[in-house]
Structure formats: structure tokens, C-alpha cells
């Protein structure tokens, strides 16, 4: 392979997007060409610099999107099932409001506040009588009445503080529920951080393996892997770790999985490790996997 050809392959080689034949040719060229080695090191620096870009993802934005979409969907399904009328027209309008970002729900909430304040005497409690202010409100339906009033069904979520020891079933259940709190990765990390000390409970371990396998946030998956560390020798945990190693899209998570797997030699994962050698892009993980296979006296590839 000539230098120009090798340099041209750097992007694809780095992403693991070349055939094994090209991979070998690039590697043997790099082994004998100091200039290309230097170029490749610069290329790796370029890729690493690109990773400095942080994902911009605000939890509040996700919540807003979900709320807006639920209302949009309600309008969509109502449009399918109902006939005409001013309410349907109003619901239809919500579709056109997408680019304008004026959810019908926001208007409905204003209406709710206005009607609530106007028609509910405070001495009878009314809206102000709630124990706490709603944390989250979502308008589910709006029905006009005959006398100019409007009936609005609102789902509200309120906050309350629950205190107790880790040994209490209701506290443990809340923590287990919090592991699946899909809109808040911070809560999931915190709950796993507390629960991991009770990972001898089968239910907790199952929650941790679920989080490792399915949580969309890599930080949460890493925390759950940390909780599973003492159980890396268990067959079911090792199966989960092998799946993570093969399928997780985050290299940091895969690195932790291979580190945990390496701590215990187990012939049953040879096939998985050989698959990893075929598919893995990350050099560190490939090296660890190769070393592990060699230590187990297994072949590196499948034939």
C-alpha cells in the first residue's frame, strides 16, 4: 500500500469501516512508515478533538417536547374520531401551531387559571386549597358547556417528600421505580448509586442489569455497571456484560464491560469475544479482548 492510499483510508480505518484485508494492509503500512504513523497520530488527535463537542440535551426540552406531542397526538386522534365543530377546528389549529410553537395546552392552562380564579371562591378552597402547587400539568381535554363555561380535564403531578431507611420496602420500591424514571437521568443515577449497596437483593440486581441493558443514558449505564461489579462472576450478569460489550453504542460503557469480564475467565464467552474482535472499532477494547482470548488460549477470530 502506498502512503496516499493509506492516508485516504484513515477515516474509514478509524471507524472500523474497512474490510479485514484493507485493515491489515493499513496496519502493515503504518508499521513500516514513520511519516504515515505521524499523520495517523494527528488524525486520531483530530477525532479526539471532535469528541470535545458536548451533546446539548436539556431535560426540560425533552419534557416540553413530550407534553406538546401528547397534545398534538390528542388533537390528531380526536380529528380522526370526531366530526366537525369549533372544538375540532381548535384542535386542528394545533397542527398548524407546530412551527409557531404555541401549544393549545398553554392557552388552556391560562384559561384554567382564569376560570379557576374567577369561579372558585377561595373560602371553599378552589385551586389554592391544594397541598402543593402542581409540578407539572397537562391538559387532556377541553369541553365547552352551555352557559359559557368550559370544562378542562388536567392531569397534575405534585411533589411530596418521603423519608425512610433503605431497609423499608416502600423506600426500596420507590428507588427501584426511580431507576426507570425515564425523563430524568440524574434521578436514575442517584437511585442506582443508593441501590447498588443492596445489589445482593435479586430485585435490585435485576433493576441494575435492566438499566445496563436498556437505559438510554450512558452515565446511568456506567453507574449500573459499577453496582454490578461484585457480581461480575455470576452467569446471568456475565451474559448481560457480554451483550453490552457487543451492542452498547458507547465506548466508555463497553470499556467498563470488558474490564469486568476480564476479571473472571469464563470459556462460555469465547464466542462473544470473537464476535467483538470482528465488530469492535475501539482499539483499547480490541486489545483487551485479544489479550483475554489469548489468555484463554482461544483463537482470535472465527473460521
Amino acid at each position, binding site marked *: 500500500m502506498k502512503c496516499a492510499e493509506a492516508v485516504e483510508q484513515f477515516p474509514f480505518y478509524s471507524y472500523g469501516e474497512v474490510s479485514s484485508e484493507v485493515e491489515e494492509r493499513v496496519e502493515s503500512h503504518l508499521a513500516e512508515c514513520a511519516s504515515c504513523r505521524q499523520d495517523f497520530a494527528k488524525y486520531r488527535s483530530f477525532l479526539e478533538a471532535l469528541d*470535545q463537542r458536548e451533546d*446539548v440535551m436539556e431535560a426540560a426540552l425533552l419534557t416540553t417536547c413530550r407534553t406538546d406531542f401528547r397534545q398534538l397526538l390528542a388533537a390528531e386522534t380526536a380529528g380522526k374520531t370526531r366530526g366537525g365543530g369549533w372544538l375540532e377546528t381548535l384542535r386542528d389549529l394545533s397542527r398548524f401551531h407546530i412551527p409557531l410553537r404555541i401549544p393549545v395546552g398553554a392557552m388552556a392552562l391560562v384559561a384554567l387559571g382564569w376560570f379557576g380564579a374567577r369561579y372558585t371562591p377561595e373560602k371553599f378552597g378552589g385551586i389554592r386549597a391544594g397541598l402543593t402547587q402542581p409540578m407539572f400539568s397537562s391538559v387532556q381535554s377541553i369541553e365547552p358547556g352551555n352557559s359559557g363555561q368550559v370544562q378542562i380535564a388536567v392531569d397534575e403531578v405534585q411533589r411530596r417528600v418521603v423519608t425512610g431507611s433503605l431497609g423499608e420496602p416502600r423506600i426500596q420500591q420507590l428507588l427501584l421505580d426511580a431507576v426507570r424514571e425515564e425523563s430524568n437521568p440524574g434521578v436514575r443515577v442517584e437511585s442506582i448509586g443508593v441501590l447498588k449497596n443492596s445489589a445482593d437483593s435479586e430485585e435490585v440486581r435485576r433493576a441494575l442489569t435492566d438499566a445496563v441493558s436498556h437505559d438510554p443514558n450512558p452515565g446511568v449505564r456506567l453507574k449500573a455497571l459499577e453496582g454490578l461489579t461484585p457480581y461480575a462472576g455470576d452467569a446471568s450478569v456475565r451474559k448481560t456484560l457480554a451483550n453490552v460489550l457487543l451492542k452498547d453504542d458507547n465506548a466508555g460503557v463497553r470499556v467498563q464491560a470488558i474490564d469486568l469480564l476480564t476479571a473472571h475467565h469464563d470459556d462460555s464467552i469465547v464466542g462473544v469475544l470473537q464476535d467483538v474482535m470482528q465488530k469492535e472499532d475501539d482499539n483499547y477494547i480490541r486489545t483487551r479482548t485479544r489479550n483475554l482470548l489469548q489468555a484463554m488460549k482461544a483463537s482470535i477470530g472465527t473460521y
Partner: protein
Amino acid sequence: MYDAAGTVSAILAAPLDEAGLIRTAQRGDEDAFERLVRMYDQSVLRLAMNLLRSPDEARDVYQEAFLKVYRNLHLFRFDCSFHTWLYRIVTNVCLDHLRRRKVRKEESTVVETPDGPVDQVTRIVEEGPAANPERQLWNRELSQGIAAALEGLTPRERTVFELRHYEGLRLRAIGDILGTTEEAAKNCLFRATQKMRARLETFAPGSGQGSAQL
């Protein structure tokens, strides 16, 4: 999601089976559809945010894409993965936004401030607990350099680069998503990489730590 009693909705705690969920949603079950949305919406929103660098546009993409999914789910025949099908919709909506932005010559999220140009989206990320100021400066400059370099790509190059480098998708999957061949996606990635590297080579990282010759 917590209800008034502080418990998690059972619907979201149940084990997920994607194919079963899709079939149930295809039969009109709205709970199943919502669960399907929840399985993917974080990654969809992240992709839209990273491609468009605008919370407002990302929000529009979320609504438009999932509404299209809802309206067309009955046409999904399992002849590709749901992920590919969904991302095909999402990337098309994102590409439309990027192309409209080109036509409108819309400004990027980079705005002029007394301290020089600042990427508003990067600023959102950086407004956390104070870290090493030199490191912050370096990160800000680098992030702005990357944002500017990405702005210099065509919508298609940008999408391919985002999906390959940041989302980690294989070129074959990217080809499927964009309705093109793996080879075409590969060529697109090559052009994008060359442009990115050229833009970042002229980027002066300042005196901060962690600078690297690119």
C-alpha cells in the same frame, strides 16, 4: 413518571418488546405508541439538537417526525429495523430544516458578544459548575471551531458525519437511512472529514491546556 401517589406508572415499568409494541401500536393502541416514542425520543431529540443546534428547531423536528411516525406506522412492514425506518423519517425532517436554513441564509447559533462570537448552544452546556477557566476557554474555542466547521458542510455531509461520528452508526445503516448506497455514504463521509479537518487545521486553539495539533 410519578403520579400523585409518588409511584411510577406501571406502563413504563413493564418489559419492552419492540416488535410486539409496534404491532400493538399499529392496531391503534395509544399506550403502546407512547411507549414506542419513549424508547427513541431522547436519541431523536439529541440528534436533532446536535444537527440543528437550535432548541426551537429541534422541538419542531420532534413533533413533525413523531407525527409522521404516527400517521405512517401502519405502513411499516418490518422489512428494515424500526430504528432505520424512524431515523429515515427524522433525518429527512432534519435535512428539510437544514436546507430551508440554507435557503433563508439563516444565521447559525453563533452570536456576536463583547467577548467575541459565542455559540449559544455551547453556552447552555458550559453554564454549569465552574471548572478550570483555561480548560473552559479551550473547550469553548474548540466547540465553536467544531460548530463552525460543521456549518461549512452540506446538509447531507453534515448528516452523514453526525450519524457516523457522533451517533456511531455503520455506513451501511446510514446508506439505508438516507436511501442511498453504502459507497455513496462513504464518499460523503470522506468529503465531510476532509472539510472538517481543513477547517479545524486553521483553527487556533489558543494557549489553553489540552490543545493538540490537528
